[in-house]
């Protein structure tokens, strides 16, 4: 089974949006600063509503903030067994 994880650009986006602090982002999204720290570090995958709130804070679609990456990307030779 391929290991997967959700990556994010929150740290970069914070600095691009007027050097927003973690506390400011936490206040805008209704979570604690510890949760923002854990999400940025990739230690916690947020729920879908929280991911949407974070993305809307930066004015981006959810894919602009979070990326789901498999360690084993699908190759062009991958076929489906029917």
């Amino acid at each position, binding site marked *: 089974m391929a290991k997967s994880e959700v990556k994010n650009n929150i*740290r970069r986006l914070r600095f691009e949006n007027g050097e927003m*602090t*973690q*506390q400011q982002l*936490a*206040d805008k999204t*209704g*979570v*604690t*600063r*510890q*949760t923002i*720290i*854990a999400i940025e570090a990739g230690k*916690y995958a*947020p*729920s879908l509503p*929280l991911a949407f709130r974070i993305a809307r804070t930066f004015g981006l679609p959810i894919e602009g903030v979070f990326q789901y990456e498999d360690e084993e990307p699908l190759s062009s030779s991958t076929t489906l067994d029917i």
Partner: protein
Amino acid sequence: MNRAQKSAWFGLTMSTLLLVLVVTSVLVAGPAPQLSNLLWFSPALGLYALLIIFLRKKQGQDKVDIDERDSCISRKALIAAFSSTAGLLIGVCMISLFIVGPTSSIPVCLLPALLYSLFVVFILTYSVAVLVQYGWRDKDGEK
């Protein structure tokens, strides 16, 4: 460090202290536990419960105290605590059945001792599970 971590550290300290006290008491009083020795711990347990309630009290009106991550951590810790407590209860019942036998009897004062042990193990497991999930030394630094 948030409220859940503070109460978890407190729970871990108190549970360890209670375990040490119980073991010391049993060693001093002999292998047969004395009910009076166990009742001596009741005020300690009451104080412990009051302090946990105080630590979990909301500290500010404007700030978010508990969010989805805290709830998730608390839920997983509760599952771990319930599982370990149930495992201990089943283990004690089965072992005593094999050791004492199905028709023999045990002192009644062992029942409150079992309750105390289950309580302490529950708090201990819950506290450790919370602290492990938050990270023992949670670096709370802004970068």
